[in-house]
């Protein structure tokens, strides 16, 4: 998992450092300032993909640093507030930041909301490291939603470890429906199904011998 100092370093070549320092300092002193700073983060801090931080863009990293600069006691409330009042870019940034912030299960509602959405940018952002707090039933639904929306499964954190036989059953049902409709199953979903089935077979062998 990426660390805050790595995001800060990654931004040094991309974002106006004076603006960033001022924004972070202002948020620490006056938490309400985060509303405007968060909204303008992309147009002031840039949108470039960060080469040293895979799958992070400059605006997401800036917004994460802003959240991390808030007083600890207020972080969770602001994270939720900024998510509920955010545009898609702001929502995505909150979701990605959660795992790096002093927040807990009270923020799971944000993941639930993102998983209900039909926007793949929100769905993938909800399936990062913070998703370890999701219960298994919700997590399986989210993975299945990725398959339906053709979102690459390599965006799902911890997929191999967490995939279980119930997810295998759900995937195999999808495969059956797709076959009946003469529609293709995404390759990565087929691979996941195969790997779940082979591990189940291995367990069955272990049990037998």
């Amino acid at each position, binding site marked *: 998992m990426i660390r805050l100092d790595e995001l800060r370093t990654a931004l040094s070549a991309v974002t106006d450092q004076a603006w960033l320092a001022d924004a972070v300092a202002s948020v620490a002193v006056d938490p309400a300032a985060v*509303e405007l700073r968060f*909204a*303008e983060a992309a*147009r002031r801090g*840039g*949108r470039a993909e960060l080469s040293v931080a895979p799958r992070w863009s400059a605006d997401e990293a800036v917004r994460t640093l802003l959240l991390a600069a808030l007083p600890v006691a207020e972080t969770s409330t602001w994270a939720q507030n900024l998510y509920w*009042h955010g545009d*898609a*870019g702001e929502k995505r940034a909150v979701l990605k930041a959660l795992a790096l912030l002093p927040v807990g299960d009270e923020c799971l509602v944000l993941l639930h909301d993102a998983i209900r959405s039909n926007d793949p940018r929100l769905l993938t952002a909800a399936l990062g490291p913070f998703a370890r707090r999701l219960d298994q039933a919700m997590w399986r639904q989210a993975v299945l939603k990725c398959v339906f929306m053709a979102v690459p499964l390599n965006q799902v954190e911890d997929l191999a470890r967490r995939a279980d036989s119930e997810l295998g059953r759900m995937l195999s049902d999808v495969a059956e429906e797709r076959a009946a409709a003469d529609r293709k199953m995404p390759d990565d979903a087929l691979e996941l199904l195969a790997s779940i089935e082979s591990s189940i077979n291995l367990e069955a062998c272990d049990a037998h011998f």
Partner: protein
Amino acid sequence: MRIFDPHIHMTSRTTDDYVRMADAGVRAVVEPAFWLGQPRTNVGSFVDYFDSLVGWEPYRASQFGVRHHATIALNPKEANDPRCRDVLDVLPRYLDKDGVVAVGEIGYDSMTSEEDSAFEAQLNLAITHGLPALVHTPHRDKVRGIRRSLAVIGASGIDSGRVVIDHLNEVTVELVRNSGCWLGFSIYPETKMSPARMVELMRRYGTDRVLINSAADWGHSDPLLTRATGEAMLTSGFGDDDVDRVLWRNPMEFYGQSGRLDLTGAGGTGLPFAGNSIRRGGSR
């Protein structure tokens, strides 16, 4: 033909419309907040609508290769409803969003004192948030409505080059042309302007500060009338460059004044325009 529709209510349109618009060359749209036909009874209805204009609708548009921006405001008609007045208090939050490129639609419907105060307050918001303003003009008593709008705009202190007065026609064009504001024309199947009449107007007045939109909404309207107007221009002797100016460069210039226009993926070519990000990643 590349088309930027500067005023179209995509919330009212289907995915079939997006497909046909993309095929016709529409690569960018601005969706102004407006009346939804059914009156709203509380601020929360507006909040959900504004959230959709900066959230779901841009995503829906992106599926068809269309870049979507919005303008946000309390529309003049509902400014008269006391249950909706407090919408003015939630506007600042939206006027800071990346996808919001103007305050609008503001202006007059029935020219009441409630409309006066909402109009003035929102022109001030445009100034404080560094945004242009999109001004709707009334269906009834239009000439007087435009005169009164120009007076309020003049008194507000906003630069007239950052204001578009919309839904103009042969009778009202000169009033606005002399004010320095931009000239908006809605091309409709029956009401407002038609492609042929629009071509005649441009023959007479040129293409300077002219914005042409389909305004397509839940009423009888057609999102392809921007394209039809471009074609009517070509068959009437206008050149490709004139069409590109009116249907692409003019709206880009007007909304570009927000500094927030991002036409990445809109098929637009060329360098970053006036601080706006044309490519993903921007010019910073």
